[in-house]
């Protein structure tokens, strides 16, 4: 029981820290958004914008803008590359932390179910989990057909089917 409590507390702390960390690195990455990465985007994209309709004048204007675009890329290119590398690094940290939080979430769930099973009743806990699992499957966006619904509730149904075959219709709902 002590071990389960320790697991619950320690992984809750890990979960909180990893979720916080993921949000933090996400915000750091977002700050290095399009403005920083594509400083020259508007200049280079609108090369002919605002130029006169006269063909010769348009050409001269376009070439001038093109020159400004190239200069901008030379000037800011290095900075943009560095920002991109930094952003990728932050996002990699974020994805790793999301995996850590997902894993610790699963461990917390298993520990919590074990805790309830030991403290109260194993079969009642599993019964409650089965009901919640079925409701979650019914309301989830991932379940879009009867086949996916069956895949989702397969562990629950197989468990109760096993209990029925092994212990019979009366003893299947009793502990021990």
């Amino acid at each position, binding site marked *: 029981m002590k071990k389960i409590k320790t697991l619950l507390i320690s992984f809750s702390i890990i979960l909180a820290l990893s979720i916080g960390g993921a949000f933090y690195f996400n915000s750091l990455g977002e700050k290095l958004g399009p403005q920083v990465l594509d400083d020259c985007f508007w200049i280079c994209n609108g090369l002919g914008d605002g130029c006169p309709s006269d063909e010769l004048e348009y050409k001269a204007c376009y070439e001038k803008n093109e020159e400004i675009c190239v200069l901008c890329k030379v000037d800011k290119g290095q900075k943009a590359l560095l920002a991109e590398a930094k952003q990728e690094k932050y996002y990699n940290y974020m994805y790793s932390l999301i995996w850590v939080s997902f894993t610790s979430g699963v461990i917390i769930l298993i520990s919590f179910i074990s805790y309830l099973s030991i403290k109260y009743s194993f079969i009642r806990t599993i019964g409650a989990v089965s009901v919640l699992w079925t409701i979650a499957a019914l309301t989830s966006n991932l379940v879009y057909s*009867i*086949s*996916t619904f*069956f*895949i989702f*509730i*397969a562990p629950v*149904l*197989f468990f109760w*089917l096993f209990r*029925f*075959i092994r212990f*019979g*219709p*009366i003893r299947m709902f009793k502990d021990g």
Partner: protein
Amino acid sequence: MKEFIAFIAAIIAALIFTAIFGAIIAVISTVIASWGLATYSVGGVLHTSGNIINIFLSFYVGYKVYKRITRVKVNQAEE
């Protein structure tokens, strides 16, 4: 009458088992094919063979359910 109820329950259990196991087999065969361990045509063969196994397994599950219900009824009658 008891046997008849057990038979109906066995059929329902077998049908539910077939539906679940069939869906799982469909996913597994597609995943195996997508990993490149087999071509998609072989994935189809895997699906078919899985379904054949599924039929036998569902018969087995239905039989076990039938036996369990009738056994419980017999025990109760003895008591």
